[in-house]
């Protein structure tokens, strides 16, 4: 049996988020309370199918610093947008000065990095032509490019690497941030996830017939698929952070059955949730809210409900925020961890935006609207292609 020793010293001291709902804490809390969705079919992308997308506004207008101009693409612009939101960059620099640059690490999760720039470059190549000599994979489509950008922009010299496990990427990045702190290798780790809208993801999910033509409706009886979004979400995981929220537990597992479809009984997902509870030294009854991965596909929502019922309890308050921000893929784990942070700090149970008729076969305690509620421990689920499962426990 794998052992899951307690997670003791991983505080979450700062965070930032940009999604289609806007930039930062106040935009997202307001949208949560209003039950507003940022999904829109007025996305401006040249697609051959109808869909609603969660596109972050005003990314093109961000001034990109000349000293790191080689990294300029949509994904790094999203990362930059998150840095300059809610005073995050200033907080990061203070942390670097406090602990020393070599004690500060970076672990990010992404599924596509700057592939959107590669798509544009590739499209411009004449038939049988060569890649432009000045195109740099290191600065754009390499999955480590955003992490490298942040290392160079912020002057972090501690360990840095990138997790890429599809839609569980940035949840697993938080796991690694915690491991780096608990191993004593780092005192603080900038962690999170970034993924931008790109043709590879959009046409890819369309090929799997998983894209909804309407704003996605997780947990709804009439749900018919995903809406894709983009996001950048960062957290600082820091040691000795008394008085802050804790990443009190995490659990990981593999389905080992299919690249894109979970086993119907949700056994892999429930294994990850149980491991997270064990590491947090909590029982199922200690959990006040579950942020569902909740992609709004028929199979995924059904499987997750079984996993939560098995590992937590059937009536636990739960919701998916993907009806508000879309499925932000590799950034989803971190973005939704930030939502959980807001829920804990502001004592709100996020609503399940877009819900009309709750599927009676799923969890019963899912509300379309945001509710007030004192929360102490919450779980956030993330699952990805390759049968990659990750559950986080955040506590206050």
């Amino acid at each position, binding site marked *: *049996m*794998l*052992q*899951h020793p307690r997670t003791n010293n991983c505080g979450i001291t700062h965070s930032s988020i940009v999604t289609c709902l806007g930039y930062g804490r106040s935009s997202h809390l307001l949208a949560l309370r209003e039950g507003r969705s940022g999904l829109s079919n007025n996305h401006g992308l040249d697609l*051959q199918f109808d869909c609603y997308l969660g596109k972050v506004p005003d990314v093109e207008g961000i001034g990109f610093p000349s000293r790191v101009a080689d990294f300029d693409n949509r994904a790094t612009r999203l990362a930059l947008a998150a840095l300059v939101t809610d005073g995050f960059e200033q907080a990061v620099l203070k942390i670097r000065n406090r602990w020393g640059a*070599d004690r500060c690490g970076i672990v990010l999760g992404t599924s596509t990095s700057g*592939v959107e720039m*590669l*798509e544009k470059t*590739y499209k411009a*190549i004449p038939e049988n032509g*060569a890649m432009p000599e000045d195109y*740099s*994979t*290191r600065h754009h*489509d*390499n*999955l*480590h*490019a955003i*992490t*490298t950008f942040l*290392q160079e922009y912020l002057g972090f*010299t501690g*360990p*840095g*690497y*990138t*997790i*890429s*496990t599809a839609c569980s990427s940035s949840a697993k990045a938080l796991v*690694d941030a915690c*491991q780096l702190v*608990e*191993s*004593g*290798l780092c005192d603080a780790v900038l962690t999170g996830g970034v993924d931008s809208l790109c*043709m*590879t993801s959009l*046409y*890819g*999910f*369309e*090929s*799997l017939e998983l894209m909804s033509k309407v704003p996605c409706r997780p947990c709804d009886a009439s749900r018919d698929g995903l809406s894709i979004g983009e996001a950048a979400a960062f957290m600082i995981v820091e040691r000795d952070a008394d008085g802050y929220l804790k990443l009190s537990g995490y659990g*990981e*597992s*593999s*389905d*080992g*059955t*299919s*690249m894109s479809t979970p086993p119907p009984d949700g056994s*892999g997902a429930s*294994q990850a949730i149980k491991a997270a509870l064990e590491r947090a030294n909590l029982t199922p009854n200690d959990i006040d809210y579950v942020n569902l991965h909740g992609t709004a596909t028929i199979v995924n929502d059904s499987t997750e409900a079984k996993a939560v019922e098995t590992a937590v309890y059937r009536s636990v308050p739960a919701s998916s925020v993907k009806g508000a921000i879309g499925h932000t893929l590799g950034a989803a784990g971190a973005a939704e961890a930030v939502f959980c942070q807001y829920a804990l700090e502001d004592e709100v149970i996020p609503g399940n935006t877009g819900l009309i008729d709750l599927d009676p076969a799923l969890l019963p305690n899912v509300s379309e609207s945001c509710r007030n509620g004192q929360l102490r421990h919450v779980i956030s689920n993330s699952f*990805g*292609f*390759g*049968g*990659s499962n990750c559950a986080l426990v955040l506590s206050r």
Partner: protein
Amino acid sequence: MKQNSLFLDRATIVSPHVNGWDEFLASLNCQDVISFEEDWRAQLESLPMRSRRRLSPQILLAISVAEKIHETLPKETAWVFASSVGEGETLNVILDALGTPEKAIQPLRFQNSVHNAASGQWTIAAGVKCPVTSINAHNYTVGAGFLKASMQIKSENCPVGLVLYDAPLPYPLSASHKINIPLGVGFALKPEPSANTIAELKISYCKTPNPMPFASLPQIPENSYNPILAVFPLLKCLAGSPQEDIFLGLNKDYGLCIKVKQL
């Protein structure tokens, strides 16, 4: 980071001319990995032929490495797959498809385009239920892979199968994504020694020494680059070559120092 002791039960290498540890021991010659035929594919045992045909050279390479260390590891083993590019061939296929009027991406290609396609396919082939991670740190991918493996072993107190792999991309991406030779290397690592243990690896975090990593590599032609070659000094040390401490870079300033004790 305090010095971590990991115990190595098996190392392996897969390349066009060196298939497994025994062949590596027989040659100990980096030149053997350099020349290869373009249609070379790693050979698998764990997947039926029909499935193998659907998989990219990168996935075949990674699974071939995992197969060679799998039998020394128990069922409850976590896995770390590390690659500086991952699914480069599939990316090329998708980009070509996006350039057509129909923009028709094959569903199987898309689900195998993710960086963790190799690790995901391995979990299916071997029925793995434990944590599996897929990481990338560009030219520092080998160091990051060892770092993650050592943390996973310590945090879960479990064995870890570490798979390092990269394979060349097709034209035109081959010009911008410079991986010139296929190479996969695997390590079966455990928190405690076993009857099969061949070496103890004492790993610590240290400043980058002078000379820089790669300096201790045999002479490799410029057109034979693969970031996984960074692990060769460790392989040669394990094979018995006298070596000082092995260094695996994590960035330009810091990396992992590994002391090898043969057992």
